[in-house]
């Protein structure tokens, strides 16, 4: 749920990075955190286990400038990807305004990507939301693996598996190097802010 503070002229939106375990959600946030200036970012909060896997969530607050005189403040969250943490994922999705689904290109993860997207659809439905109507962007991460002997999925295969129902923008990315990270962030921020603004600021 977005928060619109008419007194301070601020709009707060929550964007969640979702995807199967080890797909690179936290890596996206870390790259954004390291690339942005102190003025535009808040403190990054991560709660992970000893093995660097997200246990609860990561949080990165960002300031994205002004629209129609309102300061746009975005909070980026990740969820723990492992199947067993479904209850935690559902908690983090509470009040979500926009979603990035990060897909793993490894052929052996094909089913997990699909399961994770279905899990996302179910979990947002439990919060009374319809994924098809929400701001959503896909990110095809780890494209640097394509040139290695590891069997990977093509973008066309990923599009077929994950995007034939939603038909939303998909970005190729190498999150460890930052390729595609800001393109993804820019698109989901634009879609989320438009979605919230159209609901509240421009329609009275």
């Amino acid at each position: 749920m977005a928060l619109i503070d008419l007194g301070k002229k601020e709009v707060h939106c929550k964007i969640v990075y979702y995807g199967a375990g080890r797909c690179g959600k936290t890596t996206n946030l870390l790259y954004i955190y390291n690339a942005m200036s102190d003025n535009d970012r808040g403190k990054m909060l991560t709660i992970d286990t000893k093995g660097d896997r997200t246990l609860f969530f990561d949080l990165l607050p960002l300031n994205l400038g002004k629209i129609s005189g309102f300061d746009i403040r975005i909070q980026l969250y990740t969820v723990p990807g492992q199947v067993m943490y479904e209850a935690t994922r559902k908690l983090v999705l509470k009040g979500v305004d926009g979603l990035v689904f990060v897909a793993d290109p490894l052929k052996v993860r094909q089913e997990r990507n699909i399961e994770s997207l279905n899990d996302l659809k179910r979990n947002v439905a439990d919060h009374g939301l319809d994924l098809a109507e929400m701001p959503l962007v896909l990110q095809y991460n780890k494209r640097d693996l394509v040139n290695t002997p590891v069997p990977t999925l093509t973008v066309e295969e990923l599009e077929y598996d994950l995007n034939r129902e939603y038909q939303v923008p998909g970005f190729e990315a190498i999150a460890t190097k930052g390729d595609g990270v800001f393109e993804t962030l820019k698109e989901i921020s634009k879609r989320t802010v438009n979605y919230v603004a159209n609901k509240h600021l421009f329609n009275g």
Partner: protein
Amino acid sequence: MADTILTAEIVSQVKDVINEKLINDNVQTVLVIDGAGNILAHCGEDTNGLDAISLAALTAANFGATSQIAKLIGENDFSLLYHKGEKANIHFARLSGEMILVSIFGDDVSLGLVRVRVEELAVLIQKIFEG
């Protein structure tokens, strides 16, 4: 969960009642947050450079997690949580409309006082949000 629209008037009224009931009696910091972890009102001082955004996000998630624990033992929800530290203590109480009131206070303030005042505030804040 619907979007929240805050007006300057609502925030000012909420801050006034929090200042009257808690801050004037030495409670250091009080936050009102929503279930998604957004800060609706922030009163008092920022003790030790308090990172209020992280506190709000963790509080919302913690409340979500403990309400699942409540269900495991046959309760619908826990309406308040309290953590005691060496110098600082923190009290969380669920308000109406999925809002949470967070109070941070030292040993010079009694837990009993905080609990009584938070109960009074729950009614007052609900009235303000309902107009």
